[in-house]
């Protein structure tokens, strides 16, 4: 392991400002907007994707820019072929092809290889991402089947589904699609902080505006949408504490003031939650590079993820809350500290 310099969430989000909070059910999204749109990088929609053998994902970058593949990018295709995912971030130079032997199969009993073409990307459901990240360096195409089977079973998808992510996505297709409409991209957006039940579960930052528009539907639908859906299915739809109800108003003018107060109060409450995370140190580990561009893995007590850096500049970053941290948060929100 080659340890690189440590960093903080604040470092990762440098150059961004927070947009207005979007809030539906237990989920809240804080858009990250920026005047900096680094157009040297392309998104995976410019890639022709295929599998060479089980566990090997091949990306052909057809653009004239370096392509960043987000960690846990997956392809669930309609061909008679085994769906695959890449458990870590990838870098593919302009007009080149790259094969990753560390990919995983995500459709246990389906035979066949994906033929080269433009396939719609998804990002693995949140509960699979940490597991995939932990096993990112191994070479064994079967290593996610157990976790997918567990996800299917916990979500109430047929027992027989086993390591079939497609079964999960098909079962919840309508619910997951709704998230795309509910959380909309805003002008100059390059990233987002995602909260469930008032706790940060993910932080995403991309290099430019068009990159964000490409990856956002996959992030909000399969990754974070699936977590929000499962949270609500488990504990019922609860409005988080960071969503402030309107106070009583006595006139239209007073109502306008009440609206402004509620919006500001929401902003302050969510800012408090986010600010607590900004300066926590994350340990960096260098993973791969293409010329001056480098992929690092980062981890803190509560978060894990990967960033893509160009010297000191973070051009891409994806952090997710660790399952242990979520459990701890849940327990601490239920059980107040003892005091006499």
């Amino acid at each position, binding site marked *: 392991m080659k340890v690189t310099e440590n960093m903080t969430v604040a470092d990762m989000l440098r150059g961004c400002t927070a*947009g*207005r*909070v*979007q*809030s*539906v*059910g237990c989920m*809240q*999204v804080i*858009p990250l907007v920026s005047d900096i749109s680094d157009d040297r990088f392309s998104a995976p929609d410019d890639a022709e994707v295929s599998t060479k053998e*089980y566990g090997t994902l091949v990306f052909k970058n057809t653009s004239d820019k370096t392509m960043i593949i987000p960690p846990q990018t997956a392809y*669930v295709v*309609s*061909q*008679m*072929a*085994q769906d695959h995912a890449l458990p870590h971030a990838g870098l593919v130079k302009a007009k080149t092809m790259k094969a990753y032997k560390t990919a995983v*199969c995500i459709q*246990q*009993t*389906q*035979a066949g290889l994906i033929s080269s073409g433009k396939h719609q990307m998804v990002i693995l459901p949140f509960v699979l991402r940490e597991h995939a990240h932990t096993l990112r360096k191994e070479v*064994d195409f*079967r290593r996610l089947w157990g976790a997918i089977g567990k996800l299917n079973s916990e979500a109430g998808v047929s027992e027989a589904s086993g390591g*079939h992510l*497609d*079964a999960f*996505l*098909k079962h919840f*297709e*309508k619910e997951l*699609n*709704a998230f*795309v*409409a*509910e*959380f*909309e*991209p*805003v*002008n100059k957006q390059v990233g987002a902080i995602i909260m469930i039940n008032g706790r940060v579960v993910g932080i995403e930052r991309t290099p430019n505006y068009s990159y964000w528009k490409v990856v956002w539907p996959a992030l909000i639908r399969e990754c974070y949408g699936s977590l929000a859906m499962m949270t609500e299915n488990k504990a019922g739809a609860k*409005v988080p504490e960071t*969503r402030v*109800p*309107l106070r*009583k*108003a*006595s*006139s*239209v*003018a007073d*109502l*306008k003031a*009440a*609206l402004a107060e509620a919006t500001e109060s*929401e902003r302050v409450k969510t800012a408090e939650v986010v600010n607590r995370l900004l300066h926590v140190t994350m340990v960096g580990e260098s993973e791969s590079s293409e010329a001056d561009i480098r992929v690092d893995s980062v981890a803190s007590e509560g978060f894990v993820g990967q960033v893509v850096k160009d010297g000191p500049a973070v051009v891409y970053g994806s952090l997710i809350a660790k399952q242990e941290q979520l459990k701890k948060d849940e327990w601490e929100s239920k059980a107040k500290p003892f005091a006499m």
Partner: protein
Amino acid sequence: MPKKMSIKKAAGTKAKPTQPAMSPKEMFALVKRDDVQPSVGMTRAGEIQFQNDKAMQKVKKSLLSFIEMAGTASGQSTYYDSKAGQQKAVIQLHDSLLDANRGLYAAMLTFPGVNDVHKQLGIMRLVGSGIGKGECSLMTPEQENRLVGFLIESLPIHRLLKLFGHMRDNRVNNSRARKIILTTVLNGGSLEFWSVKYRHKMRTALVHALGRGRASALRAILSKSNMDEKELAFFDSAVGQFVRDPVMRKSAVLKECVCFVLGGASASGYTVDLIRRYYDARGSLDSGQGLPRETLEGIRATYHKETPKGKVLELAKTAMSEGDRMRVQKAAKEAGIEVEFDPTKQDIVSLFVYALEMGMTDAIREAIFKKAADIARSLPMSYNRVGIVLDASMSMFGSKEAKRRPLAIALAMREVLGRMSRDATYEKVAGGAEASGCLVYPQGDTSLAEALVEVVEKEPDAVFIITDGYENAPAGRVNEVVKAMRGFGVSTPMYQVTSVIDAGAGSVRSLSDEMIPMPVSRPAGIGLAMVRAALEADLPQGIKALIGLAKPVIEGKKGGQPHGSGDVPKGGSK
């Protein structure tokens, strides 16, 4: 130790991550209706009667859902719902209402704002299924026939031909269906043009209506240079008797067009201008000038592959319908060809779809304003001051299938609603980027609540929120705001105008139960919302009013728009 591979060869086809959409055959398939017990009927005294309370609730739910869907859902995917989900919901509603009462179902199909897909499904059900055993209807068979005729006349020819194809697929070939097909195909006034443009669809329809044997015999005798008396009598009984114009009935145009459509080869050669050009164009594309664009493109792709596509636009531009002229603007611009179109001949929503993609011009804006004013005048309500909140957030962009359409409908509604006020209109756009003229491009989050409060502050007589029903800044805020306003005495009626449907719930996604939903797919459809209000207030009286509204149609006093009016060359048919 080497790892063992455990991927097994899967048997059968692979499960796709999305629910497959229905095929047209499935979508238009009819359910067997042997033992139907209508849940609503009419007494001899003319009173509406329900089987029981449960049936009444069911009918009410079906009617309200139908009104919501009839103006919006078309079986296409939306930003949130799959095509399959939409289709299933649409079909269930049609069947449930048909079972409730056939006449009531038929009456619902005649209202302005019911979109073409629903009319097609309705005609299919009314024509394809006879009155079941023990079934009663709020209409007599004669009235129902007139109503079906009205629906047929109101549909454009390409939709009718598709419907006839569905009839063939689902084996609907009773005498009523056959008569409808033949009179429709043979009396459109553009037989020559339709024959070359829709040759295969016309053949499907004719062969289905005539039967394979008769069609084949007809093709054989029409291919001869001369017909004897017996053959002429056969032609007249098979085809001629369905042609209303006595001159056309005896004409060579009719015979040649039918021969051409059925795939016959006229022994003496075709004399009908367009059919002659059709064959000549195979040798020289220039000879096909005046043929429909799609036909000419087919000939180019087969016989003149080296000729650029732009040439087809050049040759076909005089034969294009107004709708076609607008549709090809992008391709014409790319090919460097000027194809003029008349914005006044387009509907207001299509003009907005066009302008959102290609940009606004003075002529289009002028046409939009005039059309909006005309529609507003035709609506049975007006206000002194109208408040409008327009949701222009990103989700209003629409799906891949219906790109820009939800926003185009919303913009059209904004223009129409704004003209319903006598004194002033107060308007606020939530999200989006206002462009020059009357355009807005979708963008950003959905913060409707602030916009609503600002509009209400101006004290309008009614407020219309034009939205897809999704809000996120935060969700539920509009409901909180409306309830707060009601709490301190604001009684202004508030309407939610929505052009997107949530197929799962079978209803429009509502922002607040304090707001009156108005689902629309085109501005004229807002009248349906009034019917909805009547049904909600008093179901039996609402149903009587419904039947009353359909009276001019079922008594033959009101005709539809002649079909194909948008599908003939500029300057009329040849």
